[in-house]
């Protein structure tokens, strides 16, 4: 981890890893989608509608993984003041927000035929909506400051405070009576899915996760390059380095 913290080394390593991860995500999602749509059975209660699960569950997973990444990176940024950590947190936010939105949208499409409603204010759905608002609040706060360093600090504190919501989402279906079903996949007694449904679901979760990492690396790389450009421009204008952040990144 210490080695990765060096931006120059990060650029080299991520360049090597990225195409392989992209290939893995294409293959996993491709095979996963085939099994999800054609190679898996209809459910005894839900019929063909169950296939929404193969997009809904991986999206929910990455909505929460995205926030956990953001909160961890924010903590590292706050405590150890590492410039790369701030960039990772900033880069993770829109990706996680997109997956959270996808989870809410597919959940709504699933809820109408199965439950009979697009939306219910139960603990699971509400805490997931709060997650989306936390992402949006994070992005707004982070870009509301002229000084990117101060914006990153304020947003990091919000990200950490909001992290409380992640275990609440996970356990909401166990702590309170909800319309949403309890966990089928991540539970102590093992999944309550037959192998024919578990296989496509796990393929999709793995594929979505690879995709998330690819986009995250892409965004962090873009942020590093953008700071380099800023540093070069500042040098041209002032004839000397003004920003210590840019200094460390340009290395």
């Amino acid at each position, binding site marked *: 981890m210490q080695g990765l913290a060096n931006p120059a080394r990060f650029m080299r390593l991520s360049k090597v890893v990225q195409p392989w991860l992209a290939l893995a995500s294409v293959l996993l999602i491709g095979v996963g989608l085939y099994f999800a749509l054609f190679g898996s059975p*209809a459910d005894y209660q*839900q019929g063909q509608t169950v296939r929404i699960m193969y997009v809904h569950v991986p999206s929910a997973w990455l909505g929460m993984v995205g926030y956990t990444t953001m909160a961890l990176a924010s903590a590292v940024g706050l405590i150890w003041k590492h410039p790369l950590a701030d960039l990772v947190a900033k880069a993770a936010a829109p990706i996680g927000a997109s997956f959270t939105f996808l989870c809410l949208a597919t959940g709504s499409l699933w809820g109408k035929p199965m439950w009979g409603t697009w939306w219910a204010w139960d603990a699971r759905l509400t805490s997931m909506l709060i997650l989306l608002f936390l992402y949006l609040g994070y992005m707004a706060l982070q870009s509301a400051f002229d000084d990117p360093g101060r914006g990153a600090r304020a947003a990091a504190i919000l990200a950490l405070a909001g992290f*409380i919501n992640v275990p609440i989402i996970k356990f909401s279906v166990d702590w309170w009576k909800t319309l949403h079903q309890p966990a089928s996949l991540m539970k102590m007694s093992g999944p309550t899915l037959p192998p024919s449904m578990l296989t496509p679901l796990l393929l999709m979760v793995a594929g979505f996760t690879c995709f998330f990492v690819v986009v995250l690396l892409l965004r962090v790389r873009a942020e590093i390059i953008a700071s380099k450009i800023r540093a070069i421009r500042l040098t041209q204008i002032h004839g000397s380095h003004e920003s210590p952040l840019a200094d460390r990144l340009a290395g």
Partner: protein
Amino acid sequence: MTRKQRRLYFVLLGMVALGGAAALVLTAMNDTLVYFYTPADLQTKHVSPDRRLRIGGLVEQGSIQHQGDVVHFVVTDLTATLPVVYRGVLPDLFREGQGVVTEGKLDGQGLFHASEVLAKHDENYMPKEVAEAIKKSGQWQEEGKKP
């Protein structure tokens, strides 16, 4: 203590304090955070009769009666039951033995007048063929009666 250590402890302490506060608030608000009450909750908890509320449970076997576009059924949580009357569209999953959440008001006679009926399903998934095979062999257990 270095400044980094001080910041680390500050963040950890903040997270613990925030977690504790959240736990206290959520415990205190427990009753308002549940999406529905069960028929047994109605007897043990004091629920004012003129308030709109949601009742959840299973549709009792053999309790569904259609009278024109009005449907009568009984919601059970296997300890207490509540008769429900509803006029409107029922979800596809609605059937005897299925989980439901219904919103409406209690009248004086203990009859629940529902304005909305939602279906609730559990976390178990199964291919159709397997479910039919189990039902044929007589090993099928209805929802809610599973161990």
